[in-house]
């Protein structure tokens, strides 16, 4: 192995630790040492155009955002294609675009599991969750889990689960954004973090869900256009033969034809299966994704939006496979994209942007850099909105005030929450600058899969679920997912400096999710209280509503 490849391998090792320990693909991840680059004027001016356009949209959206329904879910008036594109946009993150291509560049085949896992998760969400969720809830998935259970404790527990996911995910995105901006625009980390936070507060507090959706939608379209262009150019260079790309890649790559099969990255069966599981169930408990299902008028439109999202994501992942393998022939032996010490300029995550530069020159490079930044902005806006909704609606209006609150008061609280979350994101982004964001993001997904997902699934489908069961199981899932991660190698060894991890695996989900399910089941079964009987008896009403949508929340009422 020559020197530059050794360095590449080193940088990839850092990203690798992220991917392995978490559901990396969703979070913007720029790991390892990042040197500030020279100021890139093309990228900055393109980004300014994007910011101006989105601020204009926010201004337009603000004029239409009058009630809390407008703020939380755009009045339920988003069209299925718009919502579908925005959902797809949430998954076509900077990490998917930069991270998966970088992982394919380094390891080949194993990286494809991330794309495949998410592509399988979405149809399952469509079959199992989408329509019932839309029929039962108004603004958040917490509406659904508290439908027939004791509202207070369930709302508090789910809000804790939901907010933990939002905060951890937000930190990962902020740190990723800061580093990405340093790389692409040559701005200081601290300014980058503040800039992201200020823009996101503007979008969310003025434009609510309407502006957040449009920002995500525009970015998704730009990313699809850019991705299609690069994939097309790569294919054109090989006379549109996918086989020829793979041939050339395996001839140039030091691992040779090994990049066409498994084993270069995920080394043992447990690692592979855990990765496969996390990819699948991590998605199903993310509050900001579940919330998008309420932005359309009924279950039918929710169904259509998920179909649009699945189609766009599938197309995008196919592009990623082509581009990922396509980076190898153009970048790996090209001195233009390597530092004098042989490492890739800007780190391994930059390979897709280098190939963009190779194919489309400075203009295209600037365009894609701006799109990569826009991606993070759109995702953090969605997260913040989801967090603000949980604070204002689930906690303030429904729990503290028992529903006795005016739409205006609730709007004020949700805006205060938006500012608070934005401020918190800056503070945490700076505090976590040098932390392993791998760990932070994996926290979010472990909690989503071990707390939110089991309660949601059983609340919809299992008559026997009781409040006690949900509470005990949810708390178990929360303690296990957080606790095992602290005892695992990411924190116990890497952060706390102990010699050996008490819990040998990086991912707790493999254990915490099934145990959470089991405890919910066990405690519900043992719960013989009157309350439990009452909750079970309400299942019939819930079933009919979840199947037919009778009494479904409309934008105007409640």
């Amino acid at each position, binding site marked *: 192995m020559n020197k530059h490849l050794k360095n590449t391998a080193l940088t990839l090792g850092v990203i690798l630790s992220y991917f392995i320990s978490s559901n990396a693909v969703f979070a913007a991840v720029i790991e390892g040492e990042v040197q500030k680059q020279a100021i890139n004027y093309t990228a900055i001016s393109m980004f300014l155009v994007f910011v101006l356009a989105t601020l204009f949209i926010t201004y337009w959206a603000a004029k239409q955002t009058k009630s809390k329904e407008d703020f939380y879910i755009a009045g339920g008036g988003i069209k299925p294609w718009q919502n579908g594109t925005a959902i797809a946009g949430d998954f076509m993150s900077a990490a998917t675009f930069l991270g998966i291509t970088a992982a394919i560049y380094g390891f080949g085949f194993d990286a*494809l*599991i991330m794309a495949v896992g998410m*592509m399988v998760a979405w149809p399952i969400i469509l079959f199992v969750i989408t329509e019932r969720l839309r029929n039962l809830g108004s603004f958040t998935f917490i509406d659904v889990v508290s439908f027939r259970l004791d509202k207070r404790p369930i709302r508090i527990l789910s809000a804790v689960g939901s907010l933990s996911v939002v905060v951890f995910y937000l930190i990962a995105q902020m740190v990723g954004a800061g580093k990405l901006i340093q790389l692409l625009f040559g701005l200081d980390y601290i300014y980058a973090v503040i800039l992201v936070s200020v823009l996101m507060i503007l979008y969310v507090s003025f434009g609510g869900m309407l502006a957040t959706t449009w920002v995500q939608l525009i970015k998704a379209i730009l990313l699809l256009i850019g991705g299609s262009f690069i994939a097309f150019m790569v294919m054109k260079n090989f006379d549109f033969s996918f086989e020829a790309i793979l041939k050339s890649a395996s001839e140039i790559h030091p691992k040779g*034809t090994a990049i*066409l*099969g498994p084993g270069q990255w995920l080394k043992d069966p447990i690692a592979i*299966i855990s990765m496969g599981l996390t990819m699948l169930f991590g998605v199903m408990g993310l509050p900001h994704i579940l919330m998008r299902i309420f932005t359309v008028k009924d279950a039918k439109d929710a169904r259509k939006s998920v179909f649009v999202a699945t*189609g766009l994501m*599938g197309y995008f992942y196919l592009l990623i496979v082509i581009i990922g393998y396509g980076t190898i022939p153009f970048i790996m032996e090209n001195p233009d994209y390597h530092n004098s010490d042989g490492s890739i300029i800007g780190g391994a995550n930059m390979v897709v942007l280098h190939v963009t530069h190779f194919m489309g020159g400075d203009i295209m490079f600037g365009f894609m850099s701006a799109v990569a930044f826009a991606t993070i902005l759109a995702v953090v806006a969605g997260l913040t909105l989801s967090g603000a909704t949980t604070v204002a609606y689930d906690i303030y209006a429904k729990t503290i005030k028992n529903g006795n609150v005016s739409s205006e008061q609730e709007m004020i609280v949700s805006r205060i929450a938006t500012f608070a979350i934005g401020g918190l994101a800056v503070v945490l982004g700076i505090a976590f600058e040098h932390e392993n964001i791998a760990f932070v993001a994996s926290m979010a997904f472990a909690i989503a899969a071990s707390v939110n997902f089991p309660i949601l699934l059983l609340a919809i489908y299992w008559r026997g679920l009781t409040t006690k069961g949900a509470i005990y199981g949810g708390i178990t899932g929360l303690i296990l997912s957080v606790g095992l991660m602290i005892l695992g190698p990411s924190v116990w060894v890497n952060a706390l400096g102990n010699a050996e991890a008490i819990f040998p695996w990086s991912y707790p989900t493999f254990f915490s999710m099934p145990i959470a399910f089991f405890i919910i089941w066990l405690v519900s079964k043992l719960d013989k209280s009157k309350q439990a009987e009452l909750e079970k008896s309400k299942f019939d009403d819930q079933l009919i509503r979840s199947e037919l949508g009778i009494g479904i929340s409309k934008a105007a009422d409640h």
Partner: protein
Amino acid sequence: MSNIESERFLNHAGFIHYSKIKNRVNFWLTILLLSSYSVYVGAMAFAPIWMSSPLWDGSTITTGILLAIILLFSGIICSGLYVLWANRVLDKLKQELLKEFGHE
């Protein structure tokens, strides 16, 4: 909704039929996707040599890459078929039910 009305729905043949076919289709499509995904993940874990084998002599496309691409497409196809079916069959059944119960 009152309990009496719930009872009416639950004992109504149309509702039982609707609920049954809907859940059956959802269940089997989910099983189909989960099992194909399990084959993919399982083969990565336990049959890496088979996954790395070329489709034909001299090809660079391996069984694994083909499976990955098939899974990407089948995600789109399964959700597409379900949405088509739901829009045509399921929604019609639902409308009839709602009409009968005076909810529309």
